[in-house]
């Protein structure tokens, strides 16, 4: 008999895969597996599709999300990761920001099904362009997964404007979009140094084997 073991708030381990409780029973968003245990439906969280899942499997030790979290998510894309965060922060809110209209098409569809997800078509490089909508909410977690050369500075810009004083930041560093020819360690050291002035880094996770040259960084406001 399979048993769901809660490893973080809202994240369950069944066998050696991780799952979240499905908020929209009977429906999956990107072709993932659905499992029913004791009348509760769980959705498989694929580490190859979602970097947060990859980080959890690669021994994440601090998980900031809970039932009431308010999340600002930069680079929502088609909403694979967001759909799982939406399962976790049942009563909270997620603002998904992306610049690509094509990706938004799918994401809007997801937002219609889930009550706690909001789409915003905007450029994360210009945080003031969506301040009208977000300024009234205190953001607990700022999550960033964009592949831009200056992604750290975009992260800092957004955190200054929206993240609450003791808020938590998560960013996925894509080393190869920051620099093509430098060594991974060099780039990582330089980028985290930029971050260090304002944030205290809790953990750095290498996302191999799920993603190459990707680092998952979780940090807290100083």
């Amino acid at each position: 008999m399979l048993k769901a073991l809660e490893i973080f708030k809202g994240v369950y381990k069944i066998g050696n895969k991780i799952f979240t409780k499905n908020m929209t029973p009977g429906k999956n968003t990107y072709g993932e597996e659905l499992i029913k245990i004791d009348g509760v439906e769980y959705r498989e969280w694929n580490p190859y599709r979602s970097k947060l899942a990859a980080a959890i499997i690669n021994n994440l030790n601090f998980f900031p999300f809970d039932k009431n979290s308010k999340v600002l998510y930069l680079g929502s894309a088609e909403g694979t990761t967001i759909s799982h965060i939406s399962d976790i922060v049942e009563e909270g809110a997620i603002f998904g920001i992306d610049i690509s209209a094509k990706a938004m098409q799918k994401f809007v569809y997801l937002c219609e099904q889930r009550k706690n997800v909001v789409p915003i078509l905007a450029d994360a490089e210009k945080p003031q362009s969506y301040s009208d909508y977000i300024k009234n909410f205190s953001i607990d977690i700022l999550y960033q997964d964009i592949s831009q050369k200056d992604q750290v500075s975009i992260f800092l810009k957004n955190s200054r404007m929206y993240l609450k004083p003791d808020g938590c930041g998560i960013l996925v560093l894509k080393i190869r979009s920051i620099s093509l020819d430098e060594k991974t360690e060099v780039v990582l050291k330089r980028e985290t140094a930029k971050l260090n002035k304002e944030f205290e880094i809790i953990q750095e996770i290498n996302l191999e084997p799920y993603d190459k040259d990707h680092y998952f960084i979780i940090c807290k406001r100083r």
Partner: protein
Amino acid sequence: MDNFEELKKKLLEKTKTEVKEKLSSDEINIIRAYSLTESIDATSNLLYEQLREWYSLYFPELTTLIKDQEIYLKLVYELCTKEKFTKEEITEFYKNTKKAEEIEKAAKNSIGSKIEEEALEEIRLLALNILNLKEEKKYLTKYIEKTTDRIMPNTSYILGNMLAAKMLLKAGSLKKLANMPASTIQILGADKAIFLHIKKKTKSPKYGIIYNSKLIMDAPRRQRGKVARILANNLAIALKVDYYTKRFIGEELKKRILKKIIKLK
């Protein structure tokens, strides 16, 4: 929480209309159409190769006699069995009496194997489908020519419609192209070579997509790099005009390019 629900409703509607607007430009249609023509080329070539392989079991001489894809396909589709390959029938689709005689002779003395009728019918249908793909490509090309003439008149005048569409596909939008410096336009499409150059210090590429333009193809090998630079410089201007005003200055630009190319010699 009411506040949030209201906001969500508002934003959902707003995003929906914005997405609709963004995805309904002419540029996107050109990009999709162009990318489709490339796929059709690849697919029809692949299928054609297989068809040749199969049909040449039955009539190997035709493969060596006719090199043109479209004529070959038409002959296979319309005539198919070797008995039908007479001079009169062939000239209906292939206006070359001398060749037609040769083919008729070859059909009579063919060393090809026997093949069952059903298999031959399959080959015939495949030929028809490939011909249809080619037809589809012609329509797409016409559409691309018409649309690029409208939304990027100067660029397509200098570079040709298909190459202009290819540039658009590579860059993603006309806005991005208009904001590119000439040096980027020059090597647009040569990603592999330029990254190798940055990483391993190999020689830098001289041209990307624009290599296929007539101006560069006609230039002697030694001058091609220089011609590419001249062309890219003027393309940068043409693209900016296309994006911001759509005024037609293509002729002037082309004259200027030709003048500079002559000066090279």
